[in-house]
């Protein structure tokens, strides 16, 4: 049975709300420049909407949209000479290969889950994250502010990002397997 226009729109919008964080994070994880992530993620959702009738609704919607996004990024590699929306074509190839070789279908992430994890950070880690992601400071600028070396700050950021990711995944696992 096909959805009517209104049902389709409402259903699709709720799927976008459910999956947008994971899809945007996925697009970035393929090596897309931060400023272009939303452009490509939106393009993927628009394509998904247009192809909705061909989508088997028993399948994982998030995985399907990520596949569409991966194809858009793959096309970006060919277009790179004209305009650079990706960081480095060899790196993107590598990350796309990883995507193709994996069968995993991660659960959707709610942005609130990320905020909960950010709230668990120590005050010093929190200050570095706010400086980087809220105020847009570079490692060099953060180093000056916190009287550290830029290398220290970068290392700190790598570890905090790892901590946040682990925390988010743990939350998803505990939601999926409540005690």
């Amino acid at each position, binding site marked *: 049975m096909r959805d009517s226009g209104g049902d389709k729109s409402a259903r699709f*919008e709720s799927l*976008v*709300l459910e999956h*947008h*964080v994971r899809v*945007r*994070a*996925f*697009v*970035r*994880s*393929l*090596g897309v420049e*931060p*400023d272009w*992530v*939303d*452009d490509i*993620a*939106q*393009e993927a*959702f*628009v394509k998904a*909407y*247009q192809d909705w009738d061909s989508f088997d609704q028993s399948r994982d919607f998030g995985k399907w949209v990520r596949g569409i996004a991966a194809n858009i990024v793959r096309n970006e590699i060919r277009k790179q000479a*004209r*305009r650079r*929306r990706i*960081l480095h074509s*060899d*790196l993107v190839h*590598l*990350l796309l290969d*990883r995507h193709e070789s994996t069968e995993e279908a991660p659960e959707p*992430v709610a*942005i609130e889950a*990320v*905020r909960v994890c*950010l709230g668990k950070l120590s005050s010093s880690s929190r200050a570095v*994250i*706010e400086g980087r*992601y*809220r*105020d*847009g*400071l*570079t*490692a*060099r*600028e953060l180093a000056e502010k916190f009287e550290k070396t830029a*290398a220290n700050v*970068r*290392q700190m*950021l*790598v570890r905090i*990002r*790892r901590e*946040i*990711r682990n925390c*988010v995944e743990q939350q998803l696992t505990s939601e999926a397997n409540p005690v």
Partner: protein
Amino acid sequence: MIDDRFEELLGGLMDGELSPDELSELVRLARDEPSRRDEILRQLESAEMIALAEDELRDASLFVSAIRDRLGEDAFVSRVQSAVRGGRRHEARRSILPWAIAAAALLVLALSVLSQLELGPGTAGDTSAQVPAPIARITELEGSVTWIGDGGQMNENPEAGDALAGGTLEAHSLNSLAEIVFTDGSSVWVSGPAVLTLSNGEAGKLIRLREGDLSLNVSPQPADRPLRLVTPSAEAVVLGTQFNVAADSSSTRLTVNEGLVRVKRIADGSVEEVGADQRVVVELEQETKFKALPRGEHVRTWKSEFPRDVRLGEWEPGAGDGPGFLRAEAHLFRGDHGERINPILLHSAVVGPANGLNRPVLLTEGARFRIQGRLGRSFRVNIGFGTHAARGGFSGKYTTNREINVSPEGGRFELELALDEFPRVRSLFPESPAGHELVWFWIQTVKEDAGLEVFSVELLASEPDPAR
């Protein structure tokens, strides 16, 4: 294995500070060891999640709204495509619109006949009196736009594909834009902020532009029913042409790319004909020269000159030998199309090279903007610009955000941004603005007044400007 060198390179990648050699080294290391590749992937993913959690301008409702806008555009185009057998989307888009609208009109007519059959004689006249016939349709929409029909019905969420039967369109913010296509295929691009009223009566089409920028592509009109464009200072009579117009309460600047436009200065009734590749400035006062002048060759570099180039903001002349500056002006942003969020206060300064130059400013590959100004404190700013096709109509808007750091008590800043650091606002615009004309440039702060003042905006070309 995640060793120190890999972690150092990874940190550099995430900070956008790796040299090409370092990037190649990182790729080599990742290729050798799958766990390193996975770590890059997880770091990028985590960075994006944190960025989404921290940046409220990227929240879910705005993201959904942007998709809805894109879908509106695409849904309309596919409806049009399905009506025209064998039409190729990109080439046919403009030319098929009149067909699609004619088809829609036939459909309305058919439904009207059906309703007469169903309702019986005597009711059809009442129905047509209640529902005015559409004169145009919205085909593109972005940002905060309101439509107020002639009967006073306000629609704060107009959508691409909506039929319009005469009324007023308000495009509220610098990001707002709309394309309206009349039933004969004549089209108008509206760039916000703008307010205009549309009608189509026995005397022909009438567009009253109170303020803002329009780019018009007018199909041939009957000689006795020309399209008329009225602004506070000028009245233009058009029989078929492509031209751009910018108006405010006291002046109108009109540039003709194709055809001929007859322009009347309202203040004294004098008339000037403006031909292809000419422009004219019409002021309310009569001292300013009112004469069509040819547009010169493109220039590739430009530096703002105040107050001539001010489009929005409060100009403060410098004291003594000190430089003057353009202070960002407060205005409200009331949410994107489809999403009425609480009003957000913006402070914007807008400059326009088209104000005073007779020569269009061409954006070229490798060009960059240099902005000099002052902030009362460190703050994140939104920067953007709008373009016209070379000697043509509206072609796009591009925008980005940057954190500007100054000392706690405020201070001067200088920012350089390359053209390719500005993503397009909509997917239908060219990815790169190179080859297009710069029409206006804005810089603004969101929600808070951070004391933004602009000393100058400069366009620098990667190669020397042959026209200089």
